[in-house]
């Protein structure tokens, strides 16, 4: 059997139920070859469940899926030859060293002992793990585990790679390294399906994004399309002279046609922008009216705002402490 589809993944109406709970409720996905596709959703949205069904790790209760044109339900063994899976929870053996793990997986994939050792060495080097080669995984840091996990998924040279929350729990520097690795994979022609809870991660990496919530796909598109569909970025202004706040509000309303949100105690004016270019118009209008400002910045919508707009409820992810400091690309305008 050979593969033949233009699409790396084509799934329609995927359903997974656990008892009477429907974790995935009719999800359609189409992922083109060579693309990075992001599945964005809060805790419990059904990201892992969807990925596991596509990776033959969970049975598909209803609907169908094809990987490079190969039916997942009918030909799981063939699909396993096409997909490299990096699970949400480290799928390497704790009691073995990094080298032993990679050699084990290499041998299972049919490499000779020599070839497996060579591939292991090569991968550990590319992932900056060569010093840890002989250490047991139980002594690895979270970031090292994730990298080893990804390395293990690449042993078979899979054309399609699934990454389930590749950077959750990593510090910003390690997250950056992981992003670089993923970009390199894509540059090499791999197709990547990744899940994440972070809009900025999807934004950084994904060509297209599907937003899922409670087992249902609520939106799909490029990150630009998503953000625009959600509406606006916000221009946050701070006035030098708080008493000018009414005058400032009038100027803003004249330029944008919308009333800004005011915080008079702080001299703050928050302007919703349909389009970030309008920020300049507002600033020029203020200059003409002789209103001076101390700070100005434009913020894109946060994941919370995207979710609120798309689903009518927030992400409910209390366990996301990074939300505030990762408040998505604040650009200084003035």
């Amino acid at each position, binding site marked *: *059997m050979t593969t033949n589809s233009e699409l790396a993944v084509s799934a329609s109406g995927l359903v997974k139920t656990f008892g009477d709970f429907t974790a995935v409720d009719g999800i359609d996905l189409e992922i083109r070859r060579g693309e990075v596709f992001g599945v964005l959703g809060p805790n419990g949205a059904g990201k892992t469940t969807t990925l596991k069904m596509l990776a033959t790790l969970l049975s598909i209760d209803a609907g169908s899926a094809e990987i490079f044109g190969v039916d997942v339900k009918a030909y799981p063994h063939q699909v396993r*030859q*096409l997909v490299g899976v990096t699970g949400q929870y480290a799928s*390497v053996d704790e009691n*073995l060293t990094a080298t032993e793990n990679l050699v084990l997986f290499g041998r299972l994939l*049919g490499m000779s002992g020599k070839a497996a050792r060579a591939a292991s060495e090569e991968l550990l080097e590319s992932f900056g793990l060569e010093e840890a080669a002989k250490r047991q995984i139980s002594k690895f840091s979270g970031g090292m585990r994730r990298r080893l996990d990804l390395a*293990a998924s690449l042993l*078979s040279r899979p054309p399609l790679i699934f990454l389930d929350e590749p950077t959750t729990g990593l510090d910003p520097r390690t997250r950056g390294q992981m992003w670089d690795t993923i970009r390199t994979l894509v540059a090499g022609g*791999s197709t990547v399906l990744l899940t994440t809870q972070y809009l900025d991660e999807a934004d950084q990496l994904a060509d297209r994004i599907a937003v899922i919530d409670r087992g249902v796909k609520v939106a799909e598109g490029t990150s630009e399309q998503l953000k625009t569909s959600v509406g606006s970025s916000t221009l946050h202004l701070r006035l030098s002279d708080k008493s000018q706040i009414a005058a400032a509000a009038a100027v803003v309303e004249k330029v944008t046609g919308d009333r800004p949100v005011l915080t008079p105690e702080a001299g703050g004016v928050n302007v919703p922008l349909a389009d970030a270019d309008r920020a300049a118009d507002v600033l020029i209008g203020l200059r003409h009216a002789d209103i001076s400002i101390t700070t100005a910045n434009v913020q894109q919508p946060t994941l919370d705002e995207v979710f609120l707009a798309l689903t009518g409820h927030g992400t409910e992810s209390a366990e996301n402490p990074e939300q505030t400091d990762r408040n998505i690309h604040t650009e200084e305008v003035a």
Partner: protein
Amino acid sequence: MAALISTYAVADRPLRAHPSVGETISQTLTMARRAYIKMMRNPEQFFDVTIQPLLFTAMFAYIFGGAISGDVQSYLPTIITGILAQTALTASMARGTQLREDMDKGVFDRFKALPIARIAPLAGPAVADLLRYGIAATLTIVVGLLMGYRPGGGVGGVLAGWALTIFAGWSLSWIFTWLGTVMKTAGGVQGLGMMIMFPLTFLSPAFVPKETMPDWLQHFVDVNPVTLVINATRDLMNAGEVTMSVVWALVGCAAVVAIFAPLSVWSYSKKL
């Protein structure tokens, strides 16, 4: 890194329909090697096959010897072969709990996602366990010899009994492998395993002659696979004869594997 990974993406490659027999064997041996490395790093995995046979052999011989056979010396041919079967059974029981614990770890997700034979992750550790059964059988026989056991079957008979014990342990381990794939927790496997192990060991001629039990119990003793193994071991080690009991023991063990190995693979793949 780019150079390394660029060669990694080849979607249009021929796909194999299923693993060949040769691949299945090689994958099983690879998984056996993994189990072996883990075993060596967790020496407590050897407790049940070292301390236990040593302790039980000496304890049972001195406690029951006088009562059952008049003296310890004449009880040894009974108790050594009985303990051999018992140890094989207890040692194989650990397979179920270990498999269950292992399957709950992330690495099993990777095994499932790899294009490998479904039986390899189950059969590999079972192969590595041959070492455990070998240790248990050897220790039991050595302790017996030290206590004055003089097997009538000679060296050949003893070696045959030793080999049969190992084969029996391996075969019975498939019952527990299957339990490991169907039960939800390692604790559950352990509990159920005990409930299976105790009647199988004690409702057998392992420690006392069958004739001393009530009639209704004797019916169970007759069909107990452990009885088959014990009778066969006695014929081999104490008499040096390859009797029908030996044939039945081998058939019984093979039947256990023929039933429980496919069941295990089926329930393991269904759990996907």
